[in-house]
């Protein structure tokens, strides 16, 4: 319990830090948010500018502005997006599940495929299959995600017609009734298997593209952690017990390599979100990445702060959960 409390405290501290960073960053940038909000025309009129600044609390000292921001935040108010004119919370409520669906698909693909490849490579060290898997991993971390997205889209949609086009659903379908915001899940909940299948078909290509980089990272690090464990006596002892090789690999080998692999998954999560920005842009996915891009390029401050906050919270939460799993998996941490 003490372990959980400490982890939780650190995470909360980091969270407060994130609010400060998003706030400071958006206030220190040289771009003038007033012009961005009102347009050049209105911004030329000092009266309008004055009124806008007062209304937004922009005439207050920075510290006061921060606490105003924090107060609104605690009420679930992230302000109104300058670009979409919607409350930022509402925009994020639609964009976030889209990205979550994509990211979950990608991370599952990357972890499952990556671990299998890493185990095979480690067990067949320096043989042909190992060399091949290592080559795949280097290619994975070297190929530009955005280019891969374009190339995959061109090949599989434009030339081969294997996959549906961009977006999350074909135009003939309406979005399923919103429960979780994940189209595949919502469609199943509403009893529309054809919509779920269509949403899943749309997910496959961008999700796989996004998985490539993470997969490359994972294979690279998991292979070397597994090799370390492979040299441990306990793997040899498990084999001396005559256990099935599946049991040896899963219960003894992978469990031994689990901690470093978990750490990598947590770190890789950040790179996954970065990749999502680029992938969403190509596939017109309408998620956090595309929203962030629109907000950043139009200096839409409330939206940027919202995105920064959401993304920071997600990253911190993911790593908090990983810390907890760490403690759960490793008896030495659990007891100590």
């Amino acid at each position: 319990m003490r372990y959980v409390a400490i982890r939780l405290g650190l995470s909360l501290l980091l969270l407060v830090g994130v609010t400060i960073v998003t706030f400071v960053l958006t206030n220190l940038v040289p771009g003038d948010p007033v012009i961005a909000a009102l347009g050049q025309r209105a911004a030329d009129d000092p009266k309008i500018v004055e009124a806008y600044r007062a209304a937004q609390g922009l005439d207050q000292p920075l510290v006061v502005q921060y606490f105003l921001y924090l107060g609104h935040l605690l009420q679930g108010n992230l302000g109104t997006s300058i670009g979409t004119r919607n409350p930022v919370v509402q925009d994020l409520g639609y964009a976030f599940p889209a990205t979550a669906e994509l990211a979950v698909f990608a991370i599952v693909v990357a972890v499952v495929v990556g671990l299998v490849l890493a185990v095979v490579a480690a067990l067949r060290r320096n043989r042909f299959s190992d060399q091949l898997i290592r080559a795949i991993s280097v290619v994975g971390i070297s190929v530009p995600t955005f280019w891969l997205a374009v190339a995959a889209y061109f090949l599989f949609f434009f030339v081969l017609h294997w996959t549906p086009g961009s977006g999350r659903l074909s135009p003939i379908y309406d979005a399923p009734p919103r429960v979780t915001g994940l189209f595949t899940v919502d469609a199943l909940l509403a009893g529309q298997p054809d919509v779920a299948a269509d949403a899943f078909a749309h997910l496959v290509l961008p999700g796989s593209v996004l998985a490539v980089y993470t997969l490359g990272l994972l294979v690279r690090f998991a292979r070397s952690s597994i090799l370390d464990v492979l040299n441990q006596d306990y793997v040899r002892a498990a084999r001396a017990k005559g256990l099935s090789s599946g049991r040896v690999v899963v219960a003894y080998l992978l469990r031994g390599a689990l901690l470093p692999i978990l750490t990598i998954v947590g770190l890789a999560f950040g790179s996954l979100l970065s990749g999502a920005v680029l992938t969403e842009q190509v596939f017109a996915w309408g998620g956090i990445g595309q929203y962030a891009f629109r907000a950043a390029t139009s200096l839409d401050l409330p939206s940027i702060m919202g995105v920064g906050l959401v993304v920071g919270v997600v990253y911190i939460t993911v790593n908090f959960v990983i810390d907890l799993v760490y403690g759960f998996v490793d008896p030495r941490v659990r007891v100590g």
Partner: protein
Amino acid sequence: MSGLEIRGLALELGGRRILDGVDVDVPAGQVTGLAGESGSGKTMTGLAVLGLQPAGARRSGTIAYDDGKVRVPNLLDLRPGAMNRLRGRRIAMVFQDPTASLQPMLSIGTQLTDHMRRHLGLSRAAARTRAAELLERVRVPSPEAALRRYPHQFSGGQLQRVAIAIAIACDPEVLIADEPTTALDVTVQAGVLRLLRELTDDLGLAVLLVTHDLGVMSAVADTVAVMRDGRVVEHGSRYQVIREPRTAYARELVESLPRTPPPGTGEGSA
């Protein structure tokens, strides 16, 4: 003969001949010591019997196994699946450092029962009952509680007793013990050795005790084989090898022995 009969066992790894025709008998109810300095191939002999030699190594020769019910003329000819059914079931192994040979993230209960359930087809409950009995047999205090604990919560000596319990769990005929006391405190070494000797006598185990320590050897072994450069250079009764070594090399080894016997082993039992 009941036990193991190793004849002309050779092992080649990366163009080097690690074992160069090892001949040794490991009869039931006896402790057969395998002595030699590091690099002489004694550990590799133990691993080669179980088929756990490093990847890429090539074995030749014969290892005959016989326990009265099951007879295998040569272990080297077995398919991997058949060999795996023998491992842990008929031929078990205890490793040097128990803190390294037990998985730190699995409970003692899991590591003590998973091969029993596979080899003996026991239910989870039956396996746990037997596991508790085994821990009692090797004198680990409060066996029920110990099953729920993890390796880091035990001392080295206790852990080696757990490792021995794991090895004898499926009633094997042959036990290969690779330097089982080297990583332990001197004060607990004697206890572990006495346990090994006792199990040999009570269960009729054929024990191959691999060690560089002739002191350990003189305390428990019935016969001693001395290895050098991948060959057995001398093989005889403990008394003969230690008191009247025939080869110069064995004599050198014996002379390097400390004058005092290990504590607690007295004049050597059996």
